[in-house]
């Protein structure tokens, strides 16, 4: 690890100010993506701006027809939130499937979606529910937020403060774990909120999380796994690595989508 300076602001304004003054600085949330790359000397931030003491960034709140989750809320706290488990258990499944207890007790939702690891779970939930990402500057809909592997529309100096999820009556996540890392080799989030039907896929696409419009169309007729029978997506554009071929990933998207829908209606 290279040397860096360390800041611990208490308000979003202060944090943004520090970011503005230190262009080589990085925000530190749970540190479970950032610290490993620093230890491997692959990242060399001049400063870390720790968000753990910033007010108003933690908690799961029910607000009318949506649930708002503070960016610094740990995976374990989202997974165990009684509010969330009551209004939308399908979303609580997502952080519950992340890593191991150590990871779930440190990692945060804000860090996960800012990082946009192509195998991360939360991006599928954000896109699969049509969430809104609220930063210190603006509100960004999920469909615009994720722009490719490890890339988002976040600008320099922009801090995710919270994420707002509309409550879908039917929602579920199905994850096929990467055998070594435990991330999603493929993960599918499916939801139905009135006529808004979404099927979002993580882990599979070489461009990060994406929606499967053909599946969504089919589900509009009837939100049932039967509607997806015989449907598949092409292998082109799927990730290829030693753990899964593009064909296998494409195949899993179909299998997991059917299982997610079954779970959502189940």
């Amino acid at each position, binding site marked *: 690890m290279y040397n860096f300076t360390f800041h611990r602001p208490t308000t979003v304004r202060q944090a943004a100010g520090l970011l503005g003054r230190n262009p080589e600085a990085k925000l530190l949330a749970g540190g479970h993506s950032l610290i490993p790359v620093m230890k491997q000397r692959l990242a060399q931030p001049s400063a870390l701006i720790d968000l753990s003491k910033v007010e108003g960034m933690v908690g799961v709140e029910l607000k009318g027809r949506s649930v708002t989750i503070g960016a610094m809320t740990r995976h374990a706290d989202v997974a165990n939130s009684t509010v969330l488990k009551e209004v939308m258990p399908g979303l609580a499944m997502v952080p519950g499937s992340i890593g191991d207890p150590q990871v779930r007790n440190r990692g945060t939702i804000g860090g996960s979606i800012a990082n946009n690891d192509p195998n991360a779970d939360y991006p599928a939930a954000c896109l699969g529910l049509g969430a809104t990402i609220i930063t210190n500057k603006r509100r960004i809909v999920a469909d615009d937020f994720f722009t490719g592997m490890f890339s988002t529309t976040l600008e320099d100096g922009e801090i995710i403060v919270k994420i707002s999820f509309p409550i879908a009556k039917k929602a579920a996540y199905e994850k096929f774990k990467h*055998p*070594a890392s435990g991330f999603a080799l493929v993960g599918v989030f499916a939801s139905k909120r009135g006529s808004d039907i979404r099927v979002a896929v993580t882990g599979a696409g070489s461009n990060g999380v994406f929606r499967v419009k053909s599946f969504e169309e089919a589900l509009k007729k009837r939100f049932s796994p039967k509607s997806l029978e015989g449907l598949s997506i092409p292998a082109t554009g799927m990730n290829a690595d030693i*753990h899964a071929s593009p*064909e296998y990933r494409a195949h899993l998207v179909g299998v997991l989508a059917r299982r997610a829908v079954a779970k959502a209606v189940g």
Partner: protein
Amino acid sequence: MSATGIGAAVRRKEDFRFVTGKGQYTDDVVRPGETRAVFVRSPHAHAKIKSIDVSAAKKMPGVIDVLTGADLATDKIGNLICGWMIHSKDGTPMKMSAHPALAAGKVNCVGDAVAVVIAESIAQGKEAAEKVKVDYDVLQAVIDPAKAQAKGAPQIHADIPNNTIYQWHLGDPKATAAAFAAAKHVTKLDIVNNRLVPNAMEPRAALAEYDEGSDHLTLWSTSQNPHVARLVISAFVGITPEHKLRVIAPDVGGGFGSKIFIYPEEVVCLWASRKVKRPVKWTSDRSEAFLTDAHGRDHVTHAELALDADGKILALRAKTIANLGAYMSTFSSSVPTYLYATLLSGQYNIPSIYCEVDAVYTNTAPVDAYRGAGRPEAAFVVERLMEVTARQMAIDPADLRKRNFITAFPHQTPVIMAYDAGDFHASLKKALELADVKGFGKRKREAARHGKLRGLGYSAYIEACGIAPSQAVGSLGAGVGLWESAEVRVNPTGSVEVLTGCHAHGQGHETTFAQLVSERLGIPFDNVSIVHGDTDKVQFGMGTYGSRSGAVGMSAIVKALDKIEAKAKKVAAYVLEAAEGDIEFKDGKFTVAGTDKSAAWGDVALNAYIAHKFVGADLEPGLKETSFYDPTNFTFPAGCHICEVEVDIDTGKTDIVNWTAIDDFGTVINPMIVEGQVHGGIAQGVGQALLEGAVYSKEGQLVTGSMMDYTMPRAHDLPSFHVGLTTTKSPSNPLGIKGCGEAGAIAAPAAVINAITDAIGTEDLAMPATANAVWSALQRAKPRQVA
């Protein structure tokens, strides 16, 4: 059986310190003025070093020195060696390349050490290491062992043509060919035994300290065999004479073979500590461990089995290419030869066997012994052949095995080994019952209703342990004898220290060896302590690997205890004023036969030292005896494992739903520890079969260089095992022990793959059988109809 004697499931003495964080591992040892070594490693698999510039690095803060291969050569430090000579078919000796501890002009695998920075701290060392400028001329690399010998393949060592180390063979080619010609059925299989990364929990570490006053060097090291390390480092590498080097292997957190070998890092730390006149410590990080620990397995094999119309085996033949990596590690040459082909008879009566093995260099990490070492590869060949044959000949796989089991002992196989005891029918029978094979059909139909394919796979393995009779291994090329030593010291208070040449790194010797002494001398288990792992304390010994510590190491203790008892009886005769011949020793008490006169163990021990009852001219004071025990044969643990799996048709994911392990380990000292060894072994074998596999890119980068890509088995990958024992005692050592450390890893891979291929109806499946691999196999094949 006493509560702490042989056969008792005594809790492990050593676990208190291990589970409370009070162990002392090499990295925990801190010496005054200690410096840290940081290695500059090659990012290329194959390259010429045009130049190395260390000037900028030397100026970095906290840097004490920066050393390269040129400095090593100037100081005339010798090469690392492989200590087992193998001769090719044509009689020529194996071709061992130079292996300097720091690269000399050329690098041959990613991670090859090029330079070392000695710094005040690791952080400063790493900063400086980035400033070492190495100018490489990158060469084409050869990674695939099957392509290493091809015409035009990149040459790794200029003096070794075709990257071929040896072309060895064993068995009778003519008789085997004749048997194949007469066969009714021939089974053919192509097998890749996948390369594994050992991943001991504690990474390797070395701490070297030079004492200028006495011109003595001390090395703390994560070694499974500190005396062998001392011998090689002094006599072959030439760091310093043997008597001026002390090697201490304190608590060691797992080895699985990978810590048998002598590596560049400990040589460099020793050499550097003398140069900088300060202690030098290196502790591998996990990334370095992936790149530089000797890997395991990596065979490419074509195997065939010939049978008559009744399913009687006539012959077996195999041709294997073994990848030994960029350099020959310490015992690498023996693994794919005498530890492999000698077990190709399995549990079966096979009249003729012929095996050819080509060992090759590639631009990958060195490959050497890893849990089982050669024997898992052999068991996989034999047990896959058996299962596939049964399917092809439509014979029940258990029945095919029964028709061919060896039933009379001793049994001379055509491949050197002479099995001395065993009962293969017994272990198979017990396994069939415990696994409820009768009920399998019903379970399979039930699974099919839930979209799951169920399969059953057998593995009736045998291995050779208790390594090894010195004369035998000497005749096969070993550079060392494989006896073991023990010294038993009885203190004046009657407590006992046992100094063993074995080394524990997870096996629980402090418990099992104390059980033996407690049983034999009738003294409390807590009054015995086991000393190991320090060449200044313990007499020369050969260390721990090859499931040898029970069969060989404990036999040495038994012999030393025999001598102790004989001497103690002499002392007792004086104490009890009786004739020596009338003294009986039982349950820790000496009695005079036919009388009620007795002396307690403690009395006799004290009298041996105060020497008030006898004169030195008649009897030497003291009670301490040493023994060197050389076994008369290998031991042959064997057994039958049955694995039952369910494969998810949709995803290809395999779940192991049932595991039965019936093993014959001879005498069992501590059933709890033995069961633990079986569990760990199966976990590693399942890891190989389902999850693990070291993958290099064509360019020679290790793709599976971290836990994010290399899949280690986890608890949730495994079922609760059903384990049991059948027992035939080994006639080759006084306790009848066979050894249990490797059995699980040897048995498991074939059981898993036999089960999955049974489930999916195709043999076209390589290890690791990941979900993707199984799904692809299902796509390629027309699956047999689900029953």
